[in-house]
């Protein structure tokens, strides 16, 4: 699948280095599962890690470590590590562990004007949720205190800048004030991760914010 909006180099490096909070890891891993091009981009940054590992000076392992490892290998319950299959469903493999097998199994909560969300359980450094936006509906205009990643899973949305389709990621930060609107041809379902609450421009969504954990 050809996607247009990729992660920037800083986020690729942060993911490759393993320093993103779990919620962002989930978004990145999900995008990687949708697009080979995205995986290739990531892999080129992970190669830095391979190089650094290769250049790291050795620290001696404990004397029996190799034997210990062979023992662990042999005593392991022959757990077969099968590669997960690439599936064409809405939820790529990494997301299924968080959101359930399919769209139908998601427990949505209405948050007004037909917009629904489902909070996913991750560690508390950042939060992740699924968002359902009915066709043609706009999200309240907001900006961000921290970093926000929005990955389109189904349908599409547009904001002042561009159109975002399945596999596209929009990166929101302090500089982005936007008003994402689902396209008219169907609902848009997104996976959103954020490490700070949003700043809504109008007072009503701001008052509701604590109740909806957005």
């Amino acid at each position, binding site marked *: 699948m050809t996607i247009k909006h990729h992660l920037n*180099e*800083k*986020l690729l*490096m*942060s993911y*490759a*280095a*393993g*320093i*993103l*909070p*779990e919620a*962002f*890891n*989930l978004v*990145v*891993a*999900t995008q*990687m599962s949708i697009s*080979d*091009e995205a*995986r*290739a981009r990531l*892999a*080129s940054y*992970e*190669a830095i*890690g*391979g*190089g*650094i*590992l*290769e*250049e*790291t*000076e*050795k*620290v*001696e*392992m*404990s004397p029996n*470590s*190799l034997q*210990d*490892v*062979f023992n*662990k*290998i042999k005593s*392991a319950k022959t757990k077969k*590590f099968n*590669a997960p299959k*690439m599936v064409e469903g809405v939820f790529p*493999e*990494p997301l299924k*562990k*968080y959101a359930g097998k399919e769209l139908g199994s998601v427990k949505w909560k209405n948050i007004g004007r037909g917009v629904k969300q489902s909070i996913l359980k*991750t*560690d508390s450094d950042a939060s992740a949720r699924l968002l359902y936006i009915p066709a043609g509906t706009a999200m309240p205009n907001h900006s961000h205190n921290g*970093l926000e990643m929005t990955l389109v899973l189904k349908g599409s949305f547009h904001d002042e800048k561009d159109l975002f389709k399945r596999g596209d990621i929009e990166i929101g*930060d302090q500089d982005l004030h936007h008003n994402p609107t689902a396209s008219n041809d169907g609902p848009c379902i997104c996976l959103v991760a954020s490490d700070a609450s949003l700043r809504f421009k109008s007072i009503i969504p701001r008052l509701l914010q604590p109740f909806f954990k957005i």
Partner: protein
Amino acid sequence: MLDLPDYINQDFEVPNRYSMIPLCSKGILSKVIIKNEINSADHWAKCILSVSSEKDEEAFSSLFTHFAPRIKSFLMKSGTGAVTAEECAQETMVTVWHKAHLFDPTRAAASTWIFTIARNKRIDAARRNNRPEPEDLPWGNDPEPDASDIIIIQEETTLLAQAVKDLPSKQRSIVERAFYADLSHQEIADETGLPLGTIKSRIRLALQRLRHNMK
């Protein structure tokens, strides 16, 4: 510099010749490789393939001897205590054995693949939570592996490692600290002009190569 003829030779002869060859001309590429049978960059990849196909304990032992002490060191630099680092390094090698059949040498160098496993063990150990693991996913297309593709992917990583080493010390330190988890993603984001400098072109070449292998 004068007493480093081997390094100069290697850096100019092999890699530059690779990078000047159009990516599509596989035929020419393999001839060059046959001519220069000095490549050992794919040695570790071959070891992983032997573990996968023949449960080759000897190949695994040599992988262990080479990588385990480096993984332990890498983890200790990432702030992991010696005991946990030893444990994680062992766990990483156990996973290398069990997941050897998922290693795709046309997509990653041996060191890169092992790095991603060690990185995930570090995250698991630190956070005790699940990490989404996209690296287990097969890639979209699965073309027949080509020996030259394998060698070049391994070689690109060696060159990238060299380029990181050659960065001015301040830049190098930022890249290394990111990978040693000594910087947060906010700190990376706040770096004006991520100091990838000269390694950027290497990253781009690695990406071109991966794209080529995806075709």
